[in-house]
């Protein structure tokens, strides 16, 4: 699974941190273009591609690329 967070779109609301059932996202010290705290992908291996973060990110900043299992 490849999860990307767009720095330009993210506004740092933190919905993804709590919405992910597998706690894939974690807080980071990075800042988005808005200047607010941006999440980062901490546990990518846990992702089961449910799409909750994509649907719930109000700014469309998250993209989950589903890859076939190797």
């Amino acid at each position, binding site marked *: 699974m490849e999860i990307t967070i767009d720095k330009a*779109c993210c506004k740092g609301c933190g919905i993804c941190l709590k919405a992910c059932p597998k706690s894939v996202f974690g807080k980071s010290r990075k800042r988005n*273009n808005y200047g607010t705290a941006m999440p980062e992908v901490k546990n990518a291996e846990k992702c089961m591609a449910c799409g909750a973060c994509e649907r719930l990110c109000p700014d*469309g900043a998250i993209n989950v690329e589903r890859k076939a299992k190797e």
Partner: protein
Amino acid sequence: MNKLYETYIKKEALPTLFCSGCGNGIVQVAAMEAMEKLGCKDEVACVSGIGCSSWIPCYYKLDVLHGMHGRALPFAEGLKLARPDKKILVFTGDGDCAAIGGNHLIHAAARNIDLTVIMVNNYIYGMTGGQKSPTTPKGSVTKTSPWGSMDEPIDAVKLVMVLGATYVARWTTAHPAQLAKSMAEGMKHEGFSFIEVLSQCPVQAGKSLWKEKDSYRIMETYKRMTKSCGSLEEAGEGKIPIGVFRHDNQREEYASKLKTVTRKQKG
């Protein structure tokens, strides 16, 4: 960036003017998902009124009419009757739809004209800075109800049910998949489709109604407040029913009635 943004969003207009954590973005994504599901992008035009939620379609790569406060429905009705073959998606808010546009809502629902109305209900006037709206719970302290709101809140879903809207649903931003499915059903449905979305306003409603600034916690509150069920009565005391309450294909749609008359008269 969300995959759907490529097809549906004018990227040069980003970032959206919504506050961080605003539910409008979730509704925006859900509507894109619905259009993608139906594959009907070229058949859709959006109409909206004035208010935070009325900015939702302004970022779409579609034909958009960003109209006057409360008048999204009459604009949409005119557009629909001029192009009955197309799908018209109306984005409106609780103030836009149930207060200033209440009269239009009543008549559009009674006509059963083929529009898909998405009423984004954040329980407050967000854009003007947190004043009481027609859906604000009784007793709530807002900027214009400093001693607690005295008005009974209006339930727009109940209202359009009574008037005979033929597709009625309510979801929250915490149910984005169901919401997208409902939007797709509503767009496919021939008749007046009304979908209310309980949406979080972490800035204004968060301050005065929920005493909570965190978007996700407000969404959790919505989850607790609501109960998914098939009819308005099932939810029980103190719970807001969510789900699809009506999906009726029997009643004839307004534009097609008009078409029948035209065919007869024109010969």
